[in-house]
């Protein structure tokens, strides 16, 4: 028990003292996951909106597929991106395996289905409510979809935050494509995994604290946004 207590104390000292090693790891984590969520939003949101308002053959199948892909195991995504980016792979010439770029790509692939599937649901529900009115006013499908994205912006923001939470907390994909190289591709989750197996509990615990606080903050932010939006815009 004393070991555990000491580890906590040491971890707290690292966090409170803004230890430079720890701060670097946190910054890289945020950089990778924020980039991934931005890219995934740019891809997933229009994709979700298009599926929500368009009718085409195979649409239902695509929806089932997207929903299933929300549960993609990160290690499998990591493996696939690894195969694509490895020297012998089709994108091997890019030479970005074991770099933060590779990690951003892997996390983007991981969360595009989440953002696309959830925004599809949100926008389709809104479309059901609004479509007659919008069509009556002369909106076409594309302009209607843009209107719906803007009108459901607060729900969509919550979805984007959920995507970010997933990216920041996953370990399998970034471990495989990043390689967990000290000072280059080492992020919070991979460091926790490594330091735990090495027995260096303070750093692992310190990062764990930061990660949990981050997740709580994100959820609080999502709740506050929802509350304010509901009160102001109905």
């Amino acid at each position, binding site marked *: 028990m004393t070991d555990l207590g000491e580890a906590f104390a040491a971890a707290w000292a690292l966090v409170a003292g803004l230890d430079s090693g720890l701060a670097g790891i946190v910054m890289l984590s945020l950089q990778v996951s924020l980039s991934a969520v931005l890219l995934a939003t740019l891809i997933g949101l229009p994709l979700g909106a298009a599926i929500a308002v368009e009718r085409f053959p195979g649409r239902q199948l695509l929806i089932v597929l997207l929903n299933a892909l929300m549960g993609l195991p990160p290690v499998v995504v990591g493996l696939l991106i690894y195969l694509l980016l490895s020297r012998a792979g089709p994108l091997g010439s890019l030479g970005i395996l074991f770099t933060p770029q590779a990690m951003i790509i892997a996390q983007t692939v991981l969360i595009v289905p989440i953002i696309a599937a959830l925004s599809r649901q949100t926008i389709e529900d809104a479309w059901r409510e609004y479509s007659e009115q919008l069509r*009556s006013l002369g909106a076409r499908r594309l302009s209607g979809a843009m209107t719906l994205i803007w009108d459901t912006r607060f729900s969509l923001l919550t979805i984007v935050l959920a995507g970010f939470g997933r990216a920041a907390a996953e370990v399998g994909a970034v471990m495989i494509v990043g390689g967990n190289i000290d000072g280059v591709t080492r992020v919070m989750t991979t460091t926790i995994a490594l330091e735990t197996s090495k027995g260096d509990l303070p750093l692992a615990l310190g990062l764990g604290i930061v990660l949990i606080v981050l997740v709580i903050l994100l959820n609080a932010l999502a709740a506050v946004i929802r509350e304010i939006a509901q009160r102001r815009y109905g």
Partner: protein
Amino acid sequence: MLPLELDQITFSAGGTTIINGISARIEAGPRTIILGPNGAGKSVLMRLCHGLLEPTGGRVVWHGARNGDVRRHQAMVFQRPVMLRRSALANVVYGLQLAGKSRRESELRAMDVLEVVGLEKQAHRPARVMSGGEQQRLALARAWALGPDVLFLDEPTANLDPASTQDIENIVNAIHASGTKIIMTTHNLGQARRLGDEILFISNGRLMEHSPIDRFFREPASPEASAFIKGELPWHQAGGTG
């Protein structure tokens, strides 16, 4: 735009015939009320006229249609107003901009109509937090701002209290006075009497009669209509909207 001719229109969905071979000619001028019990097909008929639904048989013809988009000369107000998550003013401006008006022109026009429906002080309030009656007035303002030749109203007061209902009826009359053709559904006989000049009486998806309001109430031509007027509803559809 007008006259509007319905030529043997039929609409079926999921194996059920909702509108069954309705033919009618609706002229410019008189306020037309589509009357009938719940489930008769009033709302579906209106959506067929407005072009939100395509008839599965027959044709909807606008004989006076000028070149261009037929939809642009019509507007519709629904039973439950659908407001965007933005201000009252922005909701009216939205419709005008879809119709191709400039931002400045839209805002001026929007303020004008908000004033006419008594919402000018609420112009900057979020539309979705307004009361049901205010939202319906806003929906009328949004439709009126477009300057339509024809305004469709689908049970616009079904969810409102008597005071709000009167506000809405006054606005509908003002829109009529400005030269817009009114076509409205209701199952409320009092409202039909107050607002109607002619009646299209629908029952079970069929047009039972098309007559001036006085004659309809004095000497209804069909047993269904006379039963409906007497309040002896032989129909047993529960809930829903016609």
